């Protein structure tokens, strides 16, 4: 087998196995629902018959049912949410789909701005140690590292909404909004997310570039008198792809809990907000679906990182 293909299959199998492991845990955890759950969910005043009916509708996990559940999940069927009445409810998938779209839109905009911004700031910080770019990135990354996300979100809201009055304090968007109105509504969560992603990411980019420029082959090229732009293009860049993509993926994974908090603070109808709402309402099937989707997104980022790494590893391509 070709070494590249072998490496790809190896990484893929590890991540798919991990994701399967996560799905087993997520499925099995629902078996730990306390005895009193029906009363907790319906309220202590609920009639015993209603509680019994509710109990009978809950799917209790069993090892034999796991493959069927997993097959459903793979088809996008996450079952039905818990409901207090007997009225038929929307399936979990129908609740989740618009929320996932909203989250991807919000995160997509933030990432499209934050990642190039972090690359530029990180490169500027690496090229001028002690300069404004380094101090700015160190400052923002320092604040992001020690502050709870809700503090950053509220500080952003206070600055841009309460004091400056530029943007709406809540990002309550609807389907039929015009793009302009939509952008104005999501400005605060997008700004917060940009800070959360770009702060730490610019620091890791700066670190990776500094490591590259300090490497023996770059030093040797400098001593041979190779022009700086040629060093950057021919020596540093081909070796920068893997660490830079890895840094981006890690920063996005690290910002995922931040997305959950930011959506909740600004009441943005995304998947993270849905996760929190469903968790407080203890609607377990919805929570399980959200967790699985987040886990899949994380694993996809890991797989993409590994593929870039394999593609940029000449030892695999030119093996003797």
């Amino acid at each position, binding site marked *: 087998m070709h070494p590249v293909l072998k490496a790809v299959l190896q990484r893929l199998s590890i991540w798919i196995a991990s994701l399967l492991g996560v799905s087993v845990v997520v499925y099995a955890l629902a078996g730990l629902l306390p005895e009193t759950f029906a009363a907790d969910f319906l309220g202590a005043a609920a009639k015993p018959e209603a509680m019994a009916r509710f109990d009978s509708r809950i799917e209790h996990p069993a090892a034999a049912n796991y493959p069927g559940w997993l097959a459903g999940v793979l088809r996008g069927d996450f079952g039905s949410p818990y409901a207090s009445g007997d009225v038929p409810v929307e399936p979990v998938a129908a609740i989740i789909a618009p929320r996932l779209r909203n989250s991807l839109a919000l995160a997509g905009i933030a990432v499209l701005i934050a990642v190039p911004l972090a690359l530029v700031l990180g490169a500027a910080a690496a090229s001028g140690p002690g300069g404004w770019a380094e101090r700015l990135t160190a400052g923002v990354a320092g604040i992001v590292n020690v502050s709870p*996300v809700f503090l950053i979100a509220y500080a952003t809201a206070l600055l841009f909404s309460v004091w400056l009055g530029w943007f709406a304090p809540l990002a309550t968007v609807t389907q039929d909004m015009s793009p302009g109105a939509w952008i104005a509504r999501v400005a605060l969560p997008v700004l917060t997310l940009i800070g959360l992603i770009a702060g730490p990411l610019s620091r890791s980019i700066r670190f990776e570039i500094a490591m590259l420029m300090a490497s023996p082959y770059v030093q040797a090229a400098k001593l041979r008198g190779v022009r700086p732009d040629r060093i950057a293009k021919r020596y540093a860049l081909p070796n920068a792809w893997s660490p830079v993509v890895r840094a981006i993926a890690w920063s996005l994974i690290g910002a995922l809990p931040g997305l959950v908090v930011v959506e909740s603070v600004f009441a943005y109808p995304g998947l993270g907000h849905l996760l929190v709402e469903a968790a*407080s309402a203890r609607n377990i099937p919805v929570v399980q679906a959200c967790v699985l989707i987040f886990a899949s997104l*994380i694993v996809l980022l890991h797989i993409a990182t590994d593929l870039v790494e394999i593609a940029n590893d000449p030892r695999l391509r030119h093996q003797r």
Partner: protein
Amino acid sequence: MSIKADFGIETPGTSAVATPVSRSTPWNGLLSELGRAPLGIQCCLAVVAGFAGLALLAPVLAPFGEASVLGDSYAAWGTRARDINGGSIGTHWLGTDQMGRDMLSRLLFGLRTTLEMALAATLLAALIAAPLGILAAFRRGWIEQALLGFMHMLTIVPTLIVALLVLAISGPSAAIMIAVLAAGSVPDLFRTMHMATTSVLSAGYTDAARLRGETAFWIIQHDVLPNVARTAAAAVLRAGCVITLVFTTVSFLGMAMPSPVAELAAMVRENATLLTYGVMTPLLPACAIALFVLALGTIANWVARDLSGSHHGR
């Protein structure tokens, strides 16, 4: 590094030939090292100690009870507190919260809750991770591989999301919250311990100890623990920072503690309405969390300074 230098200066002058050189105990060494720490680090130590003191003394210092509803909601700073008959019973120095409870008292009790939970989770994580890390380093082979694989699994889903899932199933519970937080920090601490122990075990002096016939327990006590102590301490302090941030985030989202318990981040959520009027009070507990994490993280970096120092030269 600094300790070695001190021995070098002290021993020739002070120790007589007959009396054995008095080895400083770990505690003496720690205290003298803290005394010589830079001013910034001493400030951070003072912040952490101050928060710990406030948390410990919260029942004494708090002017009012944690859950006692006293007056109007959202009273301004410095409002007089009145009993049912209208008699004055003190002052709400920081006003009252959304249910008319004294903000300053809630802040003190909330700090206590936050630090208690973070401390318990950090200790639990360290107690689980350290023995496992050492075990994995000693028992190369399938035990090591199984532990590494298990830790890899634990890190895939962020702790915040795991906490939301688990607490949605169990309902709000301090014990389960602590367990989830600890489980989230175990992989990092485990890997740190595993790597540090592995590097000690590959050193010549442990080979010598093995050839002398020393037991694994002796090697752990005399070779491993003294050499990984600083790395482990820095890793535990960093875990404390992460745990504090994750716990407060879960608490902010309303999932961690049952209702009347005061907690810093939950207070932010409860009183967030005030922010829309430009009143800063809800940000006080959030800033307290950030200040605590900043101080703890700075101390962690300082503890780890000699370890990273060797990399700067390259």
